[in-house]
């Protein structure tokens, strides 16, 4: 690790101020991605601004059919939350398969969403449920938030405060984990919402995306078999030593079908 200055922010305002005054400052929450990155000397921030314990970023609440989860909520808290398990069990289940127990005890929702790793789990739920990302500056729809590999709509100095998930009628997450890293080799979140079916895919492409043709097919027939033969453009899919694009494309369909089958079981 390179040298940096660690600052524990006392408020969101202070955190924003620190980010604004130090161009090379970075936020740290659970640190499950950032600290390994620093250890490999792949980043060189001047300051780390710790926002994990800020009161504004805590809490899980169900309000008017919407589930609000504070950005600093750790994965294990979401996985274990009675409120989440009742409102959107698929979200709790997703949180329970992120990384490993030690990672879930540290990692946060806001950190995962802001980092937007193309193989992360949370972005699939955020996009699949059509959630809203509430920041220090505005509210951003999930459809506008994720912008490809490690890229989001967040501006410099903008901090995620909470994520607001509409409570879906039914939702399910099916993940094929990478055998070494535990990230999603490919995973699919399917949600039946008031506005129709949403299918979000993580791990397969350069960033989380919606498989809209599948959504259309499922709107007609909410059964796994409806996905047979639905076109899937895999041209930009990831290809690496573990899985090429064709295999990932297959996994998208298989995991989507499994998620749909899980929906039926609820």
């Amino acid at each position, binding site marked *: 690790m390179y040298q940096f200055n660690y600052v524990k922010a006392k408020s969101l305002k202070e955190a924003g101020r620190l980010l604004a005054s130090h161009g090379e400052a970075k936020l740290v929450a659970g640190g499950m991605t950032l600290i390994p990155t620093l250890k490999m000397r792949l980043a060189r921030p001047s300051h780390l601004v710790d926002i994990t314990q800020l009161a504004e970023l805590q809490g899980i609440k169900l309000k008017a059919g919407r589930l609000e989860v504070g950005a600093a909520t750790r994965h294990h808290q979401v996985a274990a939350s009675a409120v989440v398990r009742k409102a959107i069990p698929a979200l709790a289940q997703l949180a329970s398969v992120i990384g490993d127990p030690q990672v879930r005890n540290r990692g946060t929702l806001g950190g995962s969403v802001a980092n937007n790793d193309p193989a992360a789990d949370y972005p699939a739920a955020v996009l699949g449920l059509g959630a809203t990302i509430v920041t220090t500056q505005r509210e951003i729809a999930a459809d506008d938030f994720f912008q490809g590999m490690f890229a989001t709509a967040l501006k410099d100095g903008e901090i995620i405060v909470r994520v607001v998930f509409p409570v879906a009628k039914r939702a399910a997450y099916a993940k094929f984990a990478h055998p*070494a890293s535990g990230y999603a080799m490919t995973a699919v979140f399917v949600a039946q919402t008031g506005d129709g079916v949403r299918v979000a895919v993580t791990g397969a492409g350069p960033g989380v995306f919606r498989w809209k043709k599948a959504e259309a097919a499922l709107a007609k027939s909410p059964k796994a078999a409806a996905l047979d033969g639905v076109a899937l453009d895999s041209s930009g899919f990831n290809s690496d030593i573990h899985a090429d694009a064709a*295999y990932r494309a*297959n996994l998208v369909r298989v995991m989507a079908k499994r998620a749909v089958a899980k929906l039926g079981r609820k």
Partner: protein
Amino acid sequence: MAHTAHHHFPAPKMRLEDTRLITGSGKYAADWDLKGQLHGYFLRADRAHAEIVAIDAGAALKHPGVVAIFTGEDAVRAGYVNAPHALNFPGKNGMKTRAPKRPALAHGRIRFVGEAVALVVAESVHAAQDAAELLQVQYRDLPAVVSPEAALAPGAPQLHDDVPGNMPLETEVGNAAAVEQAIAGAAHVTRLKMEVTRVAPSPMEPRACTVVHDANADSYTLHVCSQGYTTLRAQLSAYTGVPRDKLNFEVRDVGGGFGQRTLAYPEYCALMIAARATARPVRWVSTRSEGFMTDSHGRANIISGELALDKAGKILAMRLDWVNDMGSYLGPGAMGHIRNTSSCMTGVYRIPALYANYRVALTNTTPVAAYRGAGRPDISYVVERLVSQAAAELKVDAAELRRRNFIPTDAFPYTTATGSVYENADLPGLLDQALKLADWKGFAGRRKKSEKAGKLRGIGISTVIENTGAGNAPKDDIQIDLDARGEVTVHTVSKAQGHSHETTFAAIVAAALQIPIERVHVRQCMPDMQHVLTGNHTGGSRSTVGAGSVCHLAALKVIEQGKPLAALELGVEPSQVEYAKGAFRTRESRRAVKLADLAKGKTFTVAAEGKFGSTQPNGCHIVEVEVDPDTGATDIVSYCAVDDCGVVINHAVVAGQLHGGVVQGVGQVLGEQVVYDRASGQMLTASFMDYCMPRAGIVRGIRGEEHPTPSKVSPLGVKGMGESGCTASLPAATNAVIDALRPLGIDRLDMPLTPATVWHAIQSAKEKAQ
């Protein structure tokens, strides 16, 4: 088992080493914290093949905290260039091994990603690493070759000027003409090309070494993780020219080895240079990423095999053509890839004619050395895959074809066609027990059930044998010290890296002396014994066969030498003295002389030694898998293992060794592999993020049984078994997956059988079928 029946080996509820290890009181190499120590950081090559044009250390030397920087110039000046190797086989047509030099720090040229270019020594690790980034190395890139077959091809980039064609050795074993004739006249020939992939042994403890130089004696002490100081000392001495008696070691707890912790690595030599030059202890702890790039790799063999059979399914001959990838330099650990694969070439079968040709290749990759089995899993993989493939082609049950070709029980001792002598085994009995345990006959029903659930089920079998226990040192030796409290200390060179020596050796001594095991304390590699004991390090499954047997002999010697002393004390003739349960008595008197009494004046010391030959543990493993055709993922749904390890000292320990070996083999079959980018030579699996280490649940349980035929090689009747697990699991697990896929017409698949690989194979088969 008559000659060992009198032994009762105590098995404590927990191992004697456990209390230390479960309370955080172990001492591993990175736990040393020496006064005044400096910290070393290696700058490593970021490319696979290049000339080093210049190194500018100016800015780095000025960095705060930096004490010194060493490069290849220093290594050459010190003469630390003669990396030892053990490829001492007679070459084909009189060829002699061409061994390249390897300066402890790269000099003039780097040949693999991660090769150490410079050693920065500073007051802190951070300072050393910060300074290393300021080192300016100017390279002139050269084309790299990472595939051994490509390296041997004409026109390949050449690694070493003195190793033409990148081939340091070509050698052969067996009778080429007899095999040729048998193949020509055979009713059936099975042909299969196989790769036993390159893997990273990955003991959980990263390498670490702190070197202290004593200027008065001009001697060195290395605080290091090692499988035993004798081999390390010999290799280091050969590498550096420092006399053996100037090399001392502090080796306490070792966090796994698997062959990878035997070697004298160049880093240790560079740290010696640094410790001497700075007159302070110099400490280096490897990161895991460094470890992937610079700790020796395992396996890495490509084999084309031919198995000739007659109409009745009797094997007539086998011919193998090997390409052995040894990485960028020859090391001392890879000789087993030739020795063990030729000495066990016949497997468990009576094969009249055998021939193998070996071409050793150098590539722009990490050097290869022994990894659990050191060639034994490779040869068992080759033979057992050929036999299962032949059975499928001949439409004969895979177990039945094996039975037809087994070396008969009454044919032991059996001399193989490559000249090895197998002592004993009961192969038909072993097979029967395994078939019953695994319910071989019920497989068809289970396959149907899986089919209904949409899964492809397969069953795989291996029947294997391996040469273990012999060792390279001229003898194994033990010293027993008995003190006035009656405590027994057993000194050995053999160093456990998880093997449980403290428990097993103590049990052997306690059994012989008939005393509670708690009174026996095993001390391994202690500094004050390092110029007294010169036996084998731990490796090649030899510790219990070698050091363990000498523990037994030494304990008997305590009794033998104690008798005359006890006789004096008791005032009788030595012949009248009997020993039992820690005391010498005469039949007539009630008086006793206790073991402790022998040491009243001073420690009672007994030394013993012995030389034992090779033992041949053998086993039959039967694996069942379910393949999910939608994802290509394989689940191990049943694992049965029947093993002949001879007499077993501690059943829990032996089962634990088998578990670990089995899962290392299964890990390799299902996912582990070191992968290099073919064009750039960059390693693509340099962390646990990409290297598929097996995790909990990969094999949920192993139903294991013993089928012992005690060895007479050792007075204990034991056979070396530390490597048996992976020797049997590598072929058994692969055969199971192939069996699951064979109905689709797939039979040529090679490890690692990752989900993607299996899924693609299924897709291709489906396309072909259409």
